[in-house]
């Protein structure tokens, strides 16, 4: 379980995170929802140790953050970070060299699943294809947890569908997934838990099926309540 407790961050005299607490369990898909600038990406970066926080704590499987833990978590940032002159085959080789947890068989499977070409250059990929390859670099690691920053943002319908299919496949099974989004769209029936952020705090956190069962509300209904109030 990823446990985020009361984390705070001040950036340019603004409280970006103002005491954020939530959990993301293994075997579940947890979705951080918030408008642009709500601090979603900052939270993922804080979990990955990529940005300092000014207060609070983050634990993964009850251990505090330390370098070895990052073999357990894969991070898919909101853009491809590989050099544009690299071929996909070279980027995969790079990942294999860099991560002990890299799973080459799975990477090959994903290359097929997303219909990617090994000889293409990173810089020549369309936005949708780049998003797929970006996801491949995260899913290719045998990690217990997977963090994804806006995996559906700004890409075409068919690429979004291909990515959504990953969520119902065995590629995700058993792992804990924490992703961010500003629009729920096709995620409504894919996620287990929704965490709504507002003004640097968690305004609602709920299990989606329980919300439908107990209050008859969809995730979008709750979002309307929170963000239009």
């Amino acid at each position, binding site marked *: 379980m990823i446990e985020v407790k009361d984390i705070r961050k001040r950036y340019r005299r603004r409280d970006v995170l103002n005491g954020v607490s939530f959990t993301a369990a293994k*075997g*579940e*898909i947890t979705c951080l929802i918030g408008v642009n600038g709500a601090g979603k990406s900052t939270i993922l970066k804080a979990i990955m140790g990529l940005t300092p926080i000014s207060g609070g704590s983050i634990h993964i499987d009850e251990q505090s953050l330390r370098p070895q833990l990052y073999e357990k978590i894969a991070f898919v940032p909101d853009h491809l970070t590989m050099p544009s002159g690299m071929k996909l085959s070279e980027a995969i080789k790079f990942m294999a060299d860099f991560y002990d947890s890299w799973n080459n068989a799975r990477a090959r499977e994903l290359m097929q699943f997303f219909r990617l070409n090994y000889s293409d250059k990173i810089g020549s990929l369309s936005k949708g294809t780049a998003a797929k390859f970006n996801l491949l670099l995260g899913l290719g690691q045998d990690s217990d947890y997977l963090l994804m920053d806006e995996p559906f943002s700004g890409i075409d319908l068919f690429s979004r569908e291909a990515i*959504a*299919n990953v*969520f*119902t*496949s*065995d590629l995700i*099974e058993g792992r804990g997934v924490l992703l961010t989004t500003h629009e729920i769209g*096709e995620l*409504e*029936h*894919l*996620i*287990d838990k929704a965490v709504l952020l507002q003004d640097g705090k968690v305004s609602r956190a709920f299990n989606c*099926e329980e919300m*439908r*069962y107990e209050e*008859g*509300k*969809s*995730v*979008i*209904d709750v979002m309307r309540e929170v963000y239009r109030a």
Partner: protein
Amino acid sequence: MNTSEGSTEVTFNNRDPVYLQVVRHFKERIATGQLSAGQVIPSRRELGALMKINPNTVQKAYKEMEEQQLIITEGNSPSRITNDTELLNQIRSELLGEAVSAFVASVRKIDVPIEELLQLVRSKYQEGGPEHD
């Protein structure tokens, strides 16, 4: 997958628990004979991928159907529809009963004479045809 033709056609609404909508989908397919006694149903993962829903939700739906004894899962073999034909026949009456009760409840507010209502139902039903879904 030939055992689940049409499964992909389900459109879920966002406000009812998805697992209950999955259970209902199975009941409808049983009631209309598309699924029969003893038939093997897709695995949890297969159904999740087909319906594009969370595998945990499918798991919950299968658990619910097991509790209602609609499906049987023995050991590691795939889940099947029960062989209890009496139970399967009940499903049709259950679905019909629910639908009729909902209809009657909403139409009662309009306070229409039953003869007029029945006639309306008859003509609507016939013009809609059997494929109406």
